């Protein structure tokens, strides 16, 4: 890994100032907070930025607040370790934060950073010499995807832990940009495109994550990886169910991470659960269906075949824990 290339670092004090600075710097500028994802990527020359707008000093962007109308607001520069240790947020969300990377990285990395984490690929997150040796890929200066060369699609993987569980919680994102601010469901932050995976408008900055009141919703997150101490997910499973008093599932949300360039909703499985009790048979049926929309590729740790195989197992375990 090389040293960081030179870049200008700008340190706004307000969000408005940050938006303005980002716009002023034009294309090629980016925002940074903890830098735990961005800086290694820059050191490997995966991305180049002439300027970075550092959000850490922006007032009011850090912290967890209870909203007046119920629900929780989590500022984008809130550290992951803070979220992991918070009793104010739904436990599944705190758990998802607690299994991201290592304690040191959680102390630097932020909620906004995890939501906006660059997609990852074993053909992309490599040193520059390595990529010179195999040839560059679509995501970085190349003209072919190394994972699936026949396609003109980038298969880099959404590898963050917060989005699946945030979607299962029905959370929203508030983003602020030159055109003003807007609030939209977390799922709408993502596109299934490994290169252009964030559906932010030009110059827009994620300001906060808004989590609605849990209100009886049962939520869980399971992270599958080789080393529980540090690794990115090879598979993330978030599930939420709302159960009627007699145990009938009124609504379910199942979201998979790390199987595509965006979090994947398992609608077929959700529909199979709706209106039925969470019996072992129903859970097995839904878990099998949950694997259908996932198309893992051979571009993470462990084989894609393995990752496909274990989706039903982990979805089933997630649902069992909620029943």
């Amino acid at each position, binding site marked *: *890994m*090389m*040293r960081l290339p030179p870049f200008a670092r700008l340190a706004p004090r307000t969000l408005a100032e940050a938006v303005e600075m980002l716009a002023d710097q034009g294309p090629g500028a980016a925002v940074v907070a903890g830098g735990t994802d961005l800086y290694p990527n820059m050191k490997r020359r995966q991305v180049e930025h002439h300027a970075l707008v550092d959000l850490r000093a922006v007032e009011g962007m850090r912290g967890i607040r209870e909203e007046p109308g119920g629900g929780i607001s989590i500022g984008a520069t809130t550290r992951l370790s803070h979220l992991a240790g918070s009793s104010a947020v739904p436990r599944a969300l705190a758990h998802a934060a607690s299994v991201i990377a290592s304690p040191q990285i959680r102390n630097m990395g932020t909620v906004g950073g995890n939501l906006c984490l660059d997609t990852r690929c*074993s053909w992309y*997150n*490599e*040193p520059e*010499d*390595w990529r*010179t*040796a*195999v040839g560059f890929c679509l995501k970085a200066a190349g003209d072919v995807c190394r994972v699936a060369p026949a396609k003109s699609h980038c298969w880099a993987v959404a590898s963050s832990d917060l989005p699946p569980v945030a979607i299962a919680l029905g959370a929203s994102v508030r983003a602020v940009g030159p055109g003003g601010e807007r609030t939209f469901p977390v799922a709408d932050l993502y596109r299934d495109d490994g290169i252009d995976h964030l559906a932010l408008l030009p110059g827009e900055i994620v300001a906060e994550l808004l989590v609605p009141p849990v209100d009886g919703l049962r939520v869980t997150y399971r992270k*599958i990886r*080789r*080393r*529980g*101490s*540090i*690794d*990115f997910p090879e598979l993330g499973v978030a599930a939420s169910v709302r159960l009627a008093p007699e145990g009938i599932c009124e609504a379910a949300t199942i979201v998979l991470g790390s199987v595509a360039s965006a979090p994947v909703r398992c609608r077929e499985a959700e529909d199979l659960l709706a209106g039925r009790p969470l019996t072992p048979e129903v859970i097995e049926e839904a878990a099998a269906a949950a694997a259908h929309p996932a198309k893992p590729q051979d571009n993470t*740790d*462990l*084989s894609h*075949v*393995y990752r496909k*195989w*274990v989706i039903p*197992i*982990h979805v089933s375990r997630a649902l069992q824990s909620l029943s």
Partner: protein
Amino acid sequence: MTVDPSRTDDLAVVGTRRPKIDAMARLTGEARYADDLSMPGMLVGRQLRSIHAHARIRSVDTSRAEALPGVVAVITGRDVPIAYGVLPVSQDENALAVDRVRYVGEPVAAVAAVDEETAEQALRLVSVDYEPLPAVLSIEDALDPSGVLIHGEGQGANVHKAVALEFGDVDAGFAAADLVREDVFSFAGNTHAPLEQPATLAALGGDGRLTVWSATQAPHYLHRALARVLELPSSRIRVVAPPVGGGFGAKTDILPHEVAAAKLAMVTGRPVKITLTREEVFHSHRGRHPVQMWVRTGFTSDGRITAMHFRSLLDGGAYGSFGVASTYYTGALQTTTYRIPAYRFEGLRVFTTKPPCGPKRGHGTPQPRFAVERHLDRAAEELGLDPVELRLRNAVEPFSRTVNHLRITSCGMRACIEEVVSASGYHGKKGHLPRGRGVGFAVSAYLSGAGLPIYWNDMPQSEVHIKVDRGGGVTVFSGATDIGQGSTSTLATIVAEILGLQPEDLAMVTADTDLTPVDLGSYSSRVTFMAGNAAIDAASKLARLVAEGAAQRLGVPPEELVFRGGQVAVRGDPRKSLSWAQAVRAASARGALMTSGVYWAPEMAGPYRGSGVGISPAYSYSAAVVEVATDPETGEVSVEEVWIAHDIGRAINPVLVQGQVEGSVYMAVGEALMEEQSFRRQGVHRGPSLLDYKLPTTLETPKIHTILIEEPDPEGPFGAKEAGQGPLLPVIPAVAAAVEDALGVVVHEVPITPDRLLRALRAGHRGKAPVIGPASVPSFEFGEPERVQPPVGSPAEVAVP
């Protein structure tokens, strides 16, 4: 006075638990590793590395790089054209490729510039015109007679070394057997991943002498190679090894950047430092060979081995490195644990276009140990015997000779087995734990130092000097490198014991070819045994000199003096004594207080070519029981608990021995479950980073119960044997056996990754045999073996010092 290093009682410091003497320096950052060194005017060196697995170099144009402001020199293979290699038989590597590259990451050019950024930029301005050649990435491809030759021109099989030996009559042994069993095994390559990335600083003095500070385990071998490649007399080169941050074999070979830094310092006249990036460490490699193995063994119905035929095929990577020795090692130590009356070994190492493999902790023996232990488990099943009982029935006897002429002296194997089986509750657990949990057992042996140096010579393998100043200060000089294992502390403890001092009282000067006498290096688990014995020799001579001076003052014969607690006292009359400083003054009046000690291993080599590999003055023994928890649905395995007994002879410092045992278990768990140095079809490493190359962290490390078996070895220093490598060996097969016990999947391959295990489990669900492992090994015609008569008259003579 008398010094009896084999004494087993009344020891003051040997055997006590104490921190390393450099523990605080290493903890606080005071210790200066090679990359911490800096000099005025120092330049930063970087290497340009091949992007092809195999290519001819048509030309290298450095002119644009040289023109970049801040660049002081650019060198290529033409500047260091002399080939070298750590083994005299394998002088096949250049620091910078001359006309051909043979792996992705092979250095092609090196630059020295005013800073790292400029050096990096300069690398991009070097243009290399390559003519790509086919990559050769497997043993099968390497043996294809119509494939490309990696060394040489044209087509042919890329055989680096083929060996076939037979000791005793193997066919007769098989004919006499009630059961003859064959199995095949595969062991993936993996790498050392030391925490400290290798670094070298080189500087030319005003007197024209070259000094090289390098993170090396073997300054003496580096010294020799630099003299050869740089065409300088040895006397013009000084090699210093600063404290090293982990070696595990990674820093035993001569590494290209060491030569490049030295050459750049000579060309520029300025100090040049090269520190490898983490990615480059994966290219530098010299790690564990991937080995495919086939073994056939005959047993009587009561489980006694009648004969064994073992075949190993090693994927060596691009260069020789230690590979000839590695090849022999895959066949040498099978006989050190079990009585094998007839033994045939066939070993093959091929070249492939990947980073060179070399020695990693256990050098060439973890792979065959995995195979042999798993093979014995299979045989035990077939014979209806308990796996522990099968080992005990075949266990070697202390003070015996093996069929391949290895001299066994002390042997605590039975004690290791009994202790570990009892402590773990193995027999109550095997086959009785709930599905998903299991236990496994295995044993092993390892060298306490290779019996011969890597280049033939009849000089001592270790020398230690001790000098005393007039105030009583003691300075010990040893060429051994402390790579974190604590060798400096161990030598200090040995000297302190003899002189009646504390280890912290001594000044230790190590690993500096100008100042310290030769020690062959910190490899093959040799330092405690060999440098330790040299230290005893030097300290005993010094004690004699001091005793003679003190005796004169005290009016007693020197034989009546004992050294204890900083005093030189008359035995039985402690009131008649001198302080150490007074005794030194008295002795100094009689002449200079400086002594030298040496160690030569006894002559042990058998009457055959290759007999130099495997011999050792003593073998350590280990036994392990591993308990795993597995997930039968997902194939995930967690090593929960490890009980390991290690026959150390004597623990000079039990804290350090325990540290070595625990470190070995940690590394073995990684090799068993996740570590794999693997490559994509372009010949690029699958993930040259500590994120993608899966190593266990502290949190994946199991609970470890270490049991030390202390049966002093007659030739070891205070009876000590090795601890750094042997304890790794039994753990890998024991993990595999535990997974079998947990899930009923046959495990003949490591690492046992979740995907491999789940594939096998799914095969089992479909009614097929659930197996992780190869179906066969590549075929190779070894030809007739060299037939060697087994030794006659089996008891081993011991050279009691």
